[in-house]
């Protein structure tokens, strides 16, 4: 092997690196490395002139490999590999030494920071010395997509992808698509009815020739990688044939079982056989297996008896369906923070203390009260209603540290809806700050204060309890310094948004990360906001962070655009950094075969053979091999040993 000619490019990152790392010293030290033929520093290596200088230096100095000491490889590895290719050298001979996130940003002592930056850079220079040029593996792409979650985010993404002529499977856990938005009454800042916006979208996606809607279904297992996923979807039986169901409602009249109605957020009850809303899609009843007395004509069987069309069939079985897709959009939405965690506000046990979604259902024409604001305890019109913002949000000591973003707006909306329903009532809002960034949002809040005569009280509420048939609210107005006591007929809590219940599980199944607040983590907060860290899996809606409807729709569209771009390619390039066997060293002991999580290694003729289509390059095999006969390309054991040495030099 002739000696490598490595170029080392040291980035200052403005002062982000240069302030705590002596960049000139790093460059000087690297110049002393045996294989380094060229070094250069620049203030912003990733800028246009910086990138050009890298290309020029490769050409001028006949470099065959490159180390850029800069930020995390997650940011600019691709940038500099593309540049290397432009300059005519193989992109897999380019590596990043991360001296920003892993060094300059976390150390203040310049001498120690510089020393560490040199060690990191040197270890990567040594690694690159043994990097082999190689070509990405071309793999065919499955031109189909899956969207998980049938709320507004998922529906929008599915429609957008379908409109590009790509087949989409929309998987929804509930018995109907529509998600949270379908539960809303009106939406801010225009006060247009959520149903009027949502229902046509639901119909559109359901009728879309390219979209297959699977409700009452859950993703169970995902295998494969970007471009070629194999997804197992568990389709629960509804025990009702949607084609035969005529929505006559006879079955619910005879069903003896009563359970809380989750679609009405617990305000009303439903039967074991039910339809979530009149506008549900698919337009069919669902028999809740868990609530039903036993799907057995001997035990009950009343619904089956009255069904004239014979739509109910206790023998319809749940099934697992396997779908091959090239890309996945995760749009699993949000839940409200559990009131049980907030005992001082009743912990969900005080009558007439509602959460925001319950209030939406009260205001909604499709809700139990047909759009009349009536308090649950006595069905009378409440005359004093207290709205409390930031319940569970912005409270790092006890609850969620983050701002749930939409509560200022929807509380203002709630106050206005209430005043529309009860013009002689009084609305009070406890708030910390009003955050109304958004088109028309500030004006909306101003109108709530001025036109609708809502009393905004700046402060928090310390306690709620029942008192003389009302709910007593103990709060503080921090602007006047006075304690406030209100005997309210109804209290509405703007609870924090948290990722929906199934999000944790789906994140695990898909191997995508979650952030510190347990929302799905984007690959980069600014530059890759709709991608997960796993290739081919995209994020949309409130499962990624609290957001309002316009933002959700925009993000869903962005995720769809990413999917369309991905699936428009005939082939995808896959990382060639996979395992390779040194046949001369292999004794055929088979330890690597057992260690491989992807069943990518088999023994043939007494030697291990790697199936390149299955290998993901994790390296479990190499750590198991007693004779170092199997290695991941460009992360070989020899390379790691040399990196260790460089770290300790």
């Amino acid at each position, binding site marked *: 092997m002739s000696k490598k000619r490595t170029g080392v490019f040291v980035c200052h990152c403005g002062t982000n690196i240069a302030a705590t790392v002596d960049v000139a010293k790093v460059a000087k030290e690297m110049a002393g490395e045996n294989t380094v033929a060229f070094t250069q520093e620049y203030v912003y290596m990733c800028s246009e002139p910086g990138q050009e200088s890298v290309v020029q230096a490769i050409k001028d100095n006949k470099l065959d490999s490159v180390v850029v000491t800069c930020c*995390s490889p*997650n940011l600019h590895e691709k940038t500099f590999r593309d540049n290397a290719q432009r300059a005519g050298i193989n992109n897999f001979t380019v590596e990043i030494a*991360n001296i*920003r*996130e*892993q*060094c300059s*940003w*976390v*150390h*203040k*002592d310049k001498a*120690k*920071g510089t*020393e*560490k930056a040199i*060690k*990191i850079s040197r*270890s990567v220079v040594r690694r690159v010395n043994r990097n082999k040029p190689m070509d990405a593996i071309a793999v065919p792409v499955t031109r189909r997509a899956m969207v998980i979650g049938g709320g507004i985010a998922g529906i929008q993404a599915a429609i957008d992808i379908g409109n590009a002529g790509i087949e989409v499977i929309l998987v929804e856990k509930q018995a109907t698509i529509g998600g949270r938005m379908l539960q809303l009454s009106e939406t801010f800042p225009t006060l247009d009815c959520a149903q009027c916006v949502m229902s046509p979208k639901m119909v559109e996606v359901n009728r879309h020739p390219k979209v297959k809607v699977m409700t009452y279904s859950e993703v169970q297992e995902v295998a494969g990688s970007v471009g070629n996923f194999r997804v197992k979807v568990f389709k629960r039986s509804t025990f009702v044939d949607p084609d035969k169901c005529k929505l006559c409602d006879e079955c619910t009249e005879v069903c003896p079982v009563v359970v809380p109605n989750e679609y009405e957020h617990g305000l009303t009850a439903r039967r074991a056989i039910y339809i979530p809303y009149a506008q549900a899609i698919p337009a069919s009843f669902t028999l809740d297996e868990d609530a039903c007395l036993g799907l057995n004509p001997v035990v009950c069987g009343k619904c089956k008896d009255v069904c004239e069309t014979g739509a109910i069939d206790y023998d319809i079985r749940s099934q697992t369906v396997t779908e091959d897709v090239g890309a996945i959009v995760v749009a699993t939405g949000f839940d409200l923070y559990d009131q049980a965690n907030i005992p001082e506000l009743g912990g969900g046990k005080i009558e007439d203390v509602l959460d925001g979604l319950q209030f939406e259902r009260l205001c909604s024409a499709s809700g139990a009260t047909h759009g009349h604001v009536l308090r649950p305890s006595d069905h009378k019109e409440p005359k004093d209603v207290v709205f409390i913002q930031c319940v569970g949000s912005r409270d790092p000591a006890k609850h969620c540290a983050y701002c749930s973003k939409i509560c200022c707006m929807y509380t203002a909306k709630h106050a206005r809806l209430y005043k529309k329903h009860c013009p002689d009532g009084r609305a009070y809002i406890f708030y910390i700050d009003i955050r109304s960034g958004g088109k028309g949002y500030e004006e909306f809040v101003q109108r709530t204060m001025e036109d609708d005569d809502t009393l905004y009280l700046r402060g928090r509420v310390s306690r709620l309890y029942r008192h003389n048939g009302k709910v007593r609210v103990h709060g503080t107005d921090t602007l006047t310094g006075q304690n406030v006591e209100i005997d309210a007929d109804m209290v509405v809590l703007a609870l924090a948004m948290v990722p929906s219940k199934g999000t944790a599980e789906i994140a*695990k199944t898909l*191997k995508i*990360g*979650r*952030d*510190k607040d347990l929302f799905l*983590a984007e690959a980069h907060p600014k530059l890759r906001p709709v991608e997960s*860290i*796993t290739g081919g899996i995209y994020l949309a809606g409130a499962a990624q962070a609290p957001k309002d409807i316009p933002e959700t729709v925009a993000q869903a569209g962005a995720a769809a655009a990413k999917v369309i771009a991905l699936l428009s390619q005939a082939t995808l390039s896959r990382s060639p*950094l996979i395992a390779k066997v040194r046949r001369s060293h292999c004794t055929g002991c088979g330890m690597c075969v057992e*260690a491989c*999580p*992807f069943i990518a290694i088999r023994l043939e003729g007494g030697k291990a053979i790697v199936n390149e289509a299955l290998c*993901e*390059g*994790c*390296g*479990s095999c*190499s*750590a*198991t091999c007693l004779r170092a006969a199997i290695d*991941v390309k460009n*992360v070989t*054991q020899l390379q*790691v*040993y040399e*990196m*260790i*040495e460089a*770290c*300790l030099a």
Partner: protein
Amino acid sequence: MSEQQTYEPRIVAFLCKWCSSAGSDLAGVSRIQYPANATPITVPCTGAISPMYILSAFNKGADGVLVSGCHIGDCHYIEGNYLARRKMHLIMQLIEFIGVEPNRFRMSWVSAAEGGKFAQVITDFVNDLKPLGPQEKLKKAERA
């Protein structure tokens, strides 16, 4: 005591690419400060870390070795961290058997969302290593 104050342990930190390396990136983005004693080596997965790497690091003069990966159950490669856990458990027993303080080797689970935890792991490790002083047992004598 004064010697202990000036002594800075040298740590090699093997980080998996998907969780702990990303967690260390988050510590950086959040500007969470921690001691500069640990030099990171990013590998695809903790499952790819050969026990020999650990011994090699001690052999080359490391005072402490850290292996950090995804939380159990969250491995990007399904089960790499289970394999690592088994191997690293043996390494811990082995180094103790040959007379190296078991505290010099540490394994942690740091996800991509745990920047603060990453900084804490390094800080704690450095603090625990300081009283032990330099690691001599496995260090190969330097050739004159």
